[in-house]
């Protein structure tokens, strides 16, 4: 498969899988405001996933549209990072996962908005406005919970530590990422990682949270289709209807 198509699938799958995870909280958020925020973020991500997957399908040229790509691929054909498929856990997990992702997404898509590929740059510029808002919100809440009560601090620190090993994969470039970076489409890994570490460091300092070691051992595999056990369950729920009733429509 063409490297650009693979790269677009990674972008689309990250947004799609996280959107699905956040949608699980619809009607179950810990507070009304959070319920609305999480589902609005899910909606933004779903819209972005549609743009990326549609473009991937067009470039691939095998007649697969956004729906075919979302509903008719199995777990090993998904290219999202492991971070986004992790379960919602307690609210600190949901929030810290979001913050780690938003910060990376923001700098990545910010660079893509300046991409040499015109269509990628257009989708990125559109998405970046939404992602900026997401990151402001999740960063703000990490500070409030981290620098909140003893209990909220403890939960947030634990979530930050537990999810840390899933943050490295985004910066471990393989041949596909390198090819995109060399073509001026994607940002270089080192730049992206430095920006991410600096922003997470700033927010954690303000949140009185201890930053885990950047040199810690990191999980990987999602980008090439080797996922944690959680993705299969997520897809089973998301894809059931289209699998059981192919072509079902409103």
């Amino acid at each position, binding site marked *: 498969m063409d490297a650009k198509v693979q790269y677009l699938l990674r972008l689309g799958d990250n947004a799609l899988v996280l959107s699905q995870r956040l949608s699980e909280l619809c009607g179950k958020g810990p507070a009304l*405001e959070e319920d609305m*925020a999480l589902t609005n*973020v899910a909606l933004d991500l779903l819209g972005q996933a549609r743009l990326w997957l549609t473009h991937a399908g067009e470039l691939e040229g095998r007649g697969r549209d956004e729906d075919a790509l979302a509903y008719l691929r199995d777990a090993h054909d998904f290219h999202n990072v492991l971070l986004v498929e992790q379960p919602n856990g307690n609210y600190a997990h949901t929030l810290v996962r979001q913050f780690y992702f938003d910060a990376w997404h923001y700098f990545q898509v910010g660079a893509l*908005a300046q991409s040499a590929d015109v269509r990628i740059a257009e989708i990125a510029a559109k998405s970046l406005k939404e992602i900026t808002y997401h990151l*402001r919100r999740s960063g703000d809440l990490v500070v409030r919970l981290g620098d909140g009560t003893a209990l909220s601090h403890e939960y947030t620190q634990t979530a930050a530590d537990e999810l840390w090993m899933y943050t490295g994969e985004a910066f471990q470039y393989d041949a596909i990422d390198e090819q995109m970076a060399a073509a001026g489409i994607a940002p270089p890994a080192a730049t992206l990682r430095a920006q991410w570490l600096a922003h997470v460091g700033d927010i954690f300092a303000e949140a009185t949270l201890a930053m885990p070691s950047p040199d810690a051992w990191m999980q990987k595999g999602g980008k090439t289709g080797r996922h944690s056990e959680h993705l299969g369950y997520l897809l089973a729920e998301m894809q059931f209807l289209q699998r059981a009733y192919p072509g079902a429509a409103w």
Partner: protein
Amino acid sequence: MTVMPAELDQAAVWAWLADVADPEIPVISVVDLGIVRAVEVAHDSVTVTLTPTYSGCPATHVIEAAVREALQAHVEDVRIVTRLSPAWTTDWLSDEGRRKLQGYGIAPPAQQVIDISALRGGLAAAVSRRAGIGPTAVPCPHCGSTHTELTSQFGSTPCKALYRCRACREPFDYFKCH
């Protein structure tokens, strides 16, 4: 009724579009919202270029269908083109649209959007925790007081945030800057 091609001009099409209401906020039209970017008239067809507000906004398809329906009352061949770039911004809301929002109980965007041109100033500045929550006051659409506070960064639709007025105690929607 289908008009003769000779009568079909841009001004007429814009006027028809000014009657197409936003499905979420029916007091403003798609023209007020600033999502109609271009109208092209050729012989007996009309091409309307729309720019979506938010990537995932569920109203996007409803708006397309409404635009098509409104124009097909006059012209048979209606083409709708979706254009992403430049990305929609609340700076494109018309003054008329802002007044209508206010009258409807939704506070219009309180400031000009710095937009992604801020990229040149560095990505980090845009996500400072205080960016966009700064000193700009959002006046209450009910009583006009600026003694208001943000209760949630997201409201009932992706384009709105929730505020409450500390003077008249009413909650209200704020059409956030984007």
